């Protein structure tokens, strides 16, 4: 085989990979868009559901989803930033650094349903929290931790050593160096991680279905010990009554709204990432 033939084959294979990837995505989006758009109306996104979701809209599913991931982000973000700072700036023992990598990647690899069971056992059974959206936020926050930690760590770690030394040499202490020099240069990495984490968390069903959500009859929670309804769990419930065409249409509509929210988070992440890259080239 000549080098030219190898070259062409390699090119064809990578083209095929791209096409396979994109066509799957386009097919998926296409189906959800085509089926979801007919269900869309102001009424659908702005009214409460009734008859187990087969009738009415998804107002409280949207609010529940946003509430649960927003609080998860609030809980997770400071912890993740702290972990990333510790790992990047304070941990200089190689063994412990490796160990922390194993922990973070391990946490990232735990199947989401295991988080659900863990939450059920710890918070609901042992601590007696009952079904609570706040417990759901805690569990989703834990799930977001590795993503935010790793992206923040990477952007902290990519700030060249000379910036640290220049700052320390001017008489700033370590904490000032971290807050005045390193974090401003890596905050967009942290925000990128946050949005990637949000995009993932808002679509999660398994970790919250036992501990944080109810399938019907909920509106805005009045305290932290109440369940909410969320888009993914709502879709799950609607899919179980798929023989009802109205329920099915609402399921598509909910999927469409969910996809829009995920896309909003992912494109925000992409946009911020691009801004960070152009900032570094300055």
């Amino acid at each position: 085989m000549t080098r030219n033939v190898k070259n062409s084959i390699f090119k064809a294979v990578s083209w095929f990979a791209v096409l396979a990837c994109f066509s799957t995505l386009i097919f998926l989006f296409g189906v959800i868009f085509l089926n979801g758009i007919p269900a869309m109306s102001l009424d659908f996104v702005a009214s409460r559901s009734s008859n187990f979701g087969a009738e009415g809209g998804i107002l409280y599913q949207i609010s529940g989803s946003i509430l649960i991931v927003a609080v998860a982000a609030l809980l997770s973000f400071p912890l993740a930033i702290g972990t990333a700072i510790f790992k990047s700036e304070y941990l200089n023992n190689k063994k412990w650094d490796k160990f922390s990598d194993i922990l973070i990647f391990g946490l990232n690899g735990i199947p989401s349903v295991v988080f659900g069971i863990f939450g059920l056992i710890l918070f609901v059974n042992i601590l007696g929290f009952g079904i609570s959206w706040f417990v759901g936020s805690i569990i989703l926050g834990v799930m977001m931790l590795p993503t935010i930690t790793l992206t923040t760590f990477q952007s902290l770690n990519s700030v060249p050593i000379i910036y640290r030394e220049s700052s320390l040499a001017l008489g700033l202490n370590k904490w000032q160096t971290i807050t005045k020099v390193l974090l401003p240069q890596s905050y967009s990495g942290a925000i990128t991680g946050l949005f990637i984490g949000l995009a993932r968390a808002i679509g999660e069903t398994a970790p919250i279905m036992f501990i944080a959500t109810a399938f019907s009859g909920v509106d805005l929670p009045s305290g932290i010990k109440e369940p909410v309804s969320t888009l993914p769990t709502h879709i799950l419930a609607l899919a179980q009554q798929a023989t009802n065409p109205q329920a099915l249409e609402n399921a598509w509509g909910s999927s469409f709204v969910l996809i829009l929210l995920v896309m909003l988070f992912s494109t925000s992440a992409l946009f911020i990432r691009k801004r960070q890259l152009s900032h570094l080239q300055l």
Partner: protein
Amino acid sequence: MKNTSSLKIIHSKADTEPEAILKTSGFNVWINDAHILNDINITIPKNKITCIVGPSGSGKSTLVRSFNRINDDIAGIKNIGKVQFNNNDILNPETDTALLRSKIGMVFQKPCVFPKSIAANVLFGIQYQRKLSEIERLEIVEENLKAVSLWKEVSHRLNNPASSLSLGQQQRLCIARTLAVKPEVILMDEPTSSLDPVSGRAVEETILKLKEKYTLVFVTHNIQQAERIADHLVFLCDAKIIEQGPVNKLFQNPENSRTKDYLNNEFCDC
């Protein structure tokens, strides 16, 4: 009669032994198992330019970086012995390194400006030492940019990003922000080696102007540069001090044949 003779003694003492601002005795540095500096005993005279010369890997940078303890964060580093700054042992674990570094500033090989404006870079260190009024800020920016001969070039664009300056200008800006903190000693680790010859000369001229007010410790592997700017020379080879003394003595009448070889031929077999 008695009085004049005692004056004479003091005077001659000042001539031969200028006041030492930095002093090391029995100073050793290990990084893991590598012996980077071996029994270093040197004195750095006040308000002079001391050049540390030697071949690559001789430990020049490690030595100069020990004076402001910027080496502290290197994994596996171990310091033994004494490093004194104004007769205080700076290796003492209780030393406030932030305070030490505001007294002993440092300029690095590669200019590193912060992603901020020119003025903000000058103020970067000093503004965390004490609160500055708006007028003080302007004064500090002007005074220190003038000290490095950058004022005329940048006074009309102080709010432009520092990264818009040329590398040579950036290096002078780095010196200006070090001066702003009002240190007593400025350590310079090959500050011209990443610059083109013309910018390098401009930085050199800036450095010569500074010696009236500051003590400078300058690391270079450029022997001609050391001859041009140094008052006092320290020759380091293979982790050890081979010779130290006034620059003329080392160039014209060195005690050690290896000093002569190195300063004349840039050759060292130690």
